[in-house]
């Protein structure tokens, strides 16, 4: 009896500390994500070419070449336009995506073979992007609103934050994201956990380059799928921040033009 009298306040205070910590972990996670978004704010627009290399377990590879144009928006998600340069039979195929902070993104696809724009109405963003280990959701604009956050740990300059996707159709239960606070909160690594909370993939960013003294861009993305042992490597060329793209460069007409 006596024992419990002593223990109850102790347990209560321990619980209080734990809950306080939990709350602050979520707040801190969110704060880090916001800081990172802020750090990258103001790039305006960019154009970059990239090579995507798909590798299976046996080392067989397959390549695709793409060009990505991005327009920064602050009140809603970014707009992006991706043009396929190769393989030959999909050359000129282009996708236009309006990411939204809340709700499903809008997506159009231009097919040069029939010279038509198709609108894809789908909530599916979790599938592999052109057979690669990247899901569309891994490549699309990383809006703060799309995740719940929890700060996990600090390791020197590295901050590790757990992100839980808001979209119920996401292929992930959570992602563990490593930010580098001394390098403008750039991303160093993301670990993806699948629906049964098993480690599915790891994405490592490397060969970072600082543009305009503010914007960090990694020249290499390497995604490894631990379950299938397949890999996808993205190699980016030089970013062009000077094209000054505007809304009219991200329309159905622009999509057709970009593809042909």
């Amino acid at each position: 009896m006596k024992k419990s009298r002593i223990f109850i306040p102790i347990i209560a205070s321990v619980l209080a500390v734990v809950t306080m910590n939990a709350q602050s972990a979520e707040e801190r996670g969110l704060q880090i994500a916001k800081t990172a978004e802020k750090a990258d704010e103001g790039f305006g627009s960019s154009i970059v070419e990239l090579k995507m290399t798909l590798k299976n377990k046996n080392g067989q590879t397959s390549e695709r070449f793409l060009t990505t144009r991005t327009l920064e928006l602050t009140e809603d998600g970014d707009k992006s336009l991706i043009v396929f340069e190769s393989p030959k039979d999909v050359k000129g195929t282009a996708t236009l995506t309006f990411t939204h902070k809340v709700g499903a993104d809008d997506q159009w696809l231009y097919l040069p073979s029939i010279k038509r724009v198709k609108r894809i109405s789908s909530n599916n963003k979790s599938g592999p992007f052109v057979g690669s280990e990247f899901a569309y959701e891994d490549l699309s604009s990383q809006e703060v609103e799309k995740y719940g956050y929890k700060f996990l740990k600090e390791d020197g300059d590295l901050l590790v934050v757990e992100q839980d996707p808001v979209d119920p159709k996401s292929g992930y239960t959570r992602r563990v994201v490593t930010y580098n606070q001394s390098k403008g909160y750039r991303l160093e690594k993301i670990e993806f956990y699948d629906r049964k909370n098993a480690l599915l993939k790891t994405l490592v960013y490397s060969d970072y380059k600082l543009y305009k003294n503010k914007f960090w861009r990694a020249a290499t993305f390497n995604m490894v799928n631990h379950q299938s042992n397949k890999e996808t490597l993205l190699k980016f060329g030089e970013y062009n921040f000077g094209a000054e793209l505007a809304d009219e460069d991200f329309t159905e007409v622009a999509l057709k033009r970009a593809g042909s």
Partner: protein
Amino acid sequence: MNAIQKTKNAANAFAKNWANFVIKFKWPVLILTILLAMGLASQGKMEFDGDYHVFFSESNPELEAFDALQEKYTKDDNIIVVLAPKDGNIFTRENLVAIEELTAEAWNTPYSSRVDAVTNFQHTSAQGDDLYVDDLSYDSANKTDAEIAEIREKALKEPLLVHRIINEEGSVTAINITVRLPGENSAAEIPEVTIATREMMSKFQESHPNFDVYTTGLVPLNTAFFESSQKDLMLTMVMLLIVVIVTLILTRNFFATLATLVVVLFSIMSAVGFIGLNGIKLTPPSAVFPTMILTLAVADSIHILVTYLQKVRKDGLDKKAALVESMRLNFMPVFITSLTTVIGFLTLNYGDVPPFWDLGNIVAFGMAMAFLFSTTTLPALMAIFPIWKSKKIAKQQDKELHKGMYARLGQFVIKQPLRLTIISLAIIGMLAYLASKNVFNDEFVEYFDTTVQFRQDSDFINENLTGFYNVEFSVGSGESGGINNPEYLQKLNEFEVWLEEQPEVVHVNAFSEVARRVNRSMHGDDQNFYKVPENREEAAQYLLLYELSLPFGLDLNNQINVDKSESRVTVTLENNSSAEMIAFAERSEQWLEDNAPEAMHSLAVSPTLMFSKLGFRQAESMFKGNIIALILISLVLMIALRNVKLGFLSIIPNVTPVLVGFGLWFLLKGTINTGMVIVFGMTLGIIVDDTVHFMSKFLRARRELGYNAKDAIIYAFETVGKALVTTTIVLLAGFVVLSTSTFALNSYMARITVIIIIAALVIDFILLPSLLILVSKKEEKIVTEPKMQMQLDK
């Protein structure tokens, strides 16, 4: 003759010295053998491996081809959960909600990579230039009746669903959970998946009692293998009980029974040590090793003990003298029968099915150890235990009675050797002809008898939804991105249509179906465009668009390779015999060769097809092993009997029981599985004992007692008749126990062995003596009719 006599004397002297040594140092010998058995047992480890891959050797070309296919696409095993709502309609709100829930839950299965259900089927529809891709039934709880009716209509028209995920009536549905096992430790991974799915299923059944639930697939198959190994291991207990009872009846001595028990248990412990030291993982065929060792090892002990007790009880020898005498008389026969059994089991290594290598090696080692323990621990123990003499007279009468019975059988034979030979050979010839009529059939599902849940569930699913058998092709185009080549697509489409037309085909899943449906969607759902695109760019761009619209885990990576140069065709089939499976595979391969460009030629592969071919491969590879076993064992016999002619003659009673066995099997069942292929080598080592004992007694009578052939036969019947019947009964008991296995590779093997062992005894009692008389006749010029008459009168 002198030299031979010398070697015989040497052998006798050796056995005597051995016995004296063991008796003199009974305690050290006992303690050393205990230490040996314990030492080996301490290294023991019994681990099970249920992965069906264990049935295929690494060099198996079908396995290589199948693994190559899995590497190209995705390596996957599956669990098929089948739901049959009691109201007979999947398409009600409650049932769809339940299916949706279970589908979501199924994603939590360990190692799962994909879950296919009717509710999460990606339905594509088009309105003008807008393309809609979505789950067929998402958030079913909020669907109106009209929407549910629409879902039903869509589902029952969907070629990718009907006969795969739902039946035509819409009363039974499947959830196919694909798991990607890392394959690092299948002994741990498979149970992990099984426990998780079973828990999920029992929870589901609790909350949804209105559903009947069945499971099948490769993971449950592996589990069934796993569990049948464990069940068969339990048969050991039954056999142990039988050993105790049989030994008690035959020896009527508690200590003898105890000593026998010690010997067989030590042999099994040593075998377990052997398993641990060699890192063998037990599989259904190899898990029967304790029962086999028990069955075979107990005979050694019984021979030694029966002679020993006889010498004490009947001849009134003292304990030590009786033991030495028993060892002297039995050392060589026990050694030779152990040797032939070891040879027989070692030849299993010639086969192409690794679990049988393990079985052969474990039992061979166990038998070698059984010989060691029977000639050390057993006499040491009997030298330590007191001997109780009793019931002498009663037994003697019993003995005489038996003796008379066997003598009468002998007389029956010697009166008409020629007639019996002709009749026997005629019957054997006929059965041998029938034996050749047996066909191989490794029906995968039928590996388990109908008491096994896996079998019941698989049967239900086969009858009501889809097939368990399948065949896969990786059809190449010969160029990167070539799967979008219209010529390739057109051919693939033709192949798909041809496959659909085959009578045994239940369902075909080919990439051409994807190409057709996307083409239709791109043309505003116009049914006229439900055909493969005619232009490569169109096909490639449609595919790109389609792939962009698919969700996590439902992508096409399991159907097309990274390079888009090959695609996978999966054909689901009805239950088929091995021969039909192989014929279907060959017909399909031939169709591609005759009708498609070379790049599209492809080998049919699949686990079910691999099992279909397993029996043939095993038989082919065991052939050499069987010949070697026959040669080696005949050589052993020639040396043991010191007679080349009789060594050759022994081939007849050693080979014919197998022919008789398979001949009778044709009348009983007519199909042979992989497990039965091994019985020739295995039973040869066992049944040869009968021949050895009979012939050695016959020769002894001829050489040492100077009897003529006919008298020698009577002598052989009188001296070993009972012993042969006794060991046959012990062997029968063991194999009858094994024949109760629920696993067909084991139970069929045991059943045919039972037939062969009985046939061996009959042949050794009828044909062998007849032959011995016939071959001896030529040498015997003098007919000794009166002398024989005298013998008989006695």
